[in-house]
């Protein structure tokens, strides 16, 4: 069955969500991934949207933002941003789901300043809820394009903390829990080695070579001992994506 890379990313991301988990859903591809999970293997997952929405059902319409009217209709709870943040801070959120501009080998993400604070080359939008989600959820799932300029040895600015510079960095900072769980890219998936906290290649998409992944990674990428090929999308997973993103706005050919 034919599928686009973005569709495979969404599916790979959706499979990271377990049934009954509470998921803080970021904007763009994470919204679709959450819906795929809900309609396939994780029907009891609960979605937090930090504008102040909690849902225990999925949305049939295409969402361009989490505040679109279909995401409020049928919501389980419409409330304040702070209320959802309080619950995440006390440990209610199993996984947070984000996109990003650049990430480093310890899973730190920059969505603020490319080129540093003083003289930024590119001013990115900033944290939104990303810093909170990375600090307070039990694990972080990240979706990004796999390019050398995006997967860097060290990011210019840490908007969203991963494992810092490795080891017990998170504990030393005072962060209560969490850290990156999986990085889902356009070429495969990466997971941290739990001793070194460094991201390692965990799975490769069908048709992608290991060389291609190394060429597009900005650090000396190690391989997980579990390295394997990513399972291609199932028809039922693609059907969910295509029933929502009918025009391929998020998941068309890219």
């Amino acid at each position, binding site marked *: 069955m034919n599928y686009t890379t973005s569709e495979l990313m969404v599916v790979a991301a959706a499979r990271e969500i377990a049934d009954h988990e509470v998921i803080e859903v970021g904007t763009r591809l994470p919204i679709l991934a959450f819906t795929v999970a809900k309609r396939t293997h994780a029907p009891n997952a609960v979605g937090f949207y930090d504008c102040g929405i909690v849902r225990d059902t999925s949305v049939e319409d295409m969402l361009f933002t989490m505040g679109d*009217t279909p995401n409020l209709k049928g919501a389980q709870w419409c409330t304040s941003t702070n209320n959802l943040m309080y619950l995440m801070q006390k440990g209610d959120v199993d996984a947070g789901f984000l996109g990003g501009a650049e990430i480093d080998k310890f899973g730190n993400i920059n969505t603020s300043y490319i080129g540093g604070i003083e003289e930024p080359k590119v001013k990115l939008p900033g944290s939104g809820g990303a*810093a909170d989600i990375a600090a307070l959820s039990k694990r972080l799932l990240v979706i990004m394009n796999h390019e050398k300029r995006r997967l860097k040895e060290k990011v210019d600015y840490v908007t969203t903390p991963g494992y810092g510079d490795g080891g017990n960095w998170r504990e030393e900072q005072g962060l209560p829990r969490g850290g990156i769980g999986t990085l889902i890219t356009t070429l495969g998936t990466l997971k941290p080695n739990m001793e070194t906290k460094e991201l390692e290649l965990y799975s490769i998409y069908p048709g992608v070579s290991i060389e291609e992944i190394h060429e597009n990674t900005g650090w000396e990428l190690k391989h997980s001992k579990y390295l394997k090929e990513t399972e291609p999308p199932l028809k039922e997973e693609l059907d969910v994506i295509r029933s929502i993103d009918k025009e391929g706005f998020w998941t068309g050919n890219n």
Partner: protein
Amino acid sequence: MSLNEAIRVLVEDGDTVVMGACHEPIIPFAAAHEIIRQKKQHLTLVGTISDIMVDMMIGAGVVKKVIIAWVGNVSGGLGNNYRRAVEKSIPHPLEVEDHSNFSIGLSVLAGAMGVPFLPTKSLLGTDLLKSNPRIEINTYQDEKLAYVPALTPNVAIIGVQRADIYGNSHLWGNTGIAMEAAMASKKVILLAEEIVSKEVILSDPNRVLVPSYKVTAVVHCPGFNHPSPFQGFYQRDHEFFHQYHKETKTEEGFGEWLNDWVLSLSNHEQYLDKLGRNRLEQLKIKEKQLAAPVNYADK
């Protein structure tokens, strides 16, 4: 009060203003246009995410500083004017005090509570602590905490579905930081889609944003939210955001966009005319999903 009068009388040059506190929905674009038309200066904007409204105000030159979690175009990409301002000081330099959605929420909550700061476990280990030195790390009983300083904006401009003429209002759907912002601010301007009787509002006091004594002005301004989504009234006009992104890539392009959609128009009525009443009609929510009535009777 008219929108023109509310902005003229209640928003002063140099003010700290929170606008559009529900993130992506119910953004008071009409108020932003009026602030730009009245050439207000040196404003500090406080917020979480107000989609392209903040980018537009920065490009128009009315903003000196942002105390904010995010500036861009939620479905369209980066904020072209935000980039120009920070990277090239166009139209002039912009001060940025970086926040996350939670830390802004805590800032206005602290302001609402009348305390100088609130602690959080968020932001620890991030470089927001470097680009926003006002957030301090402190230790309480061996636990590290980020202390987020209180904000008490001069003005909050908040959209609501309906209000009475006294300033009681109903806001439903996700509320973002709207309630905290209204409680923290010295003045509150409400933009209401509908003006209704006090009886309608008091029929459901749990849905009230803040009591009328907190509200300085109510402006009846249907369609103030366009192009943002507005539960019960309008869907999001996605195309408008994407068009904005394309047309504002260059400074000149933004100049034309601003002239077409703001400066050449004298009020919000003309904006809606330019948009086309058909387009607005297409965005209107036509179906009904009504909440069950609740009984507040006492006997």
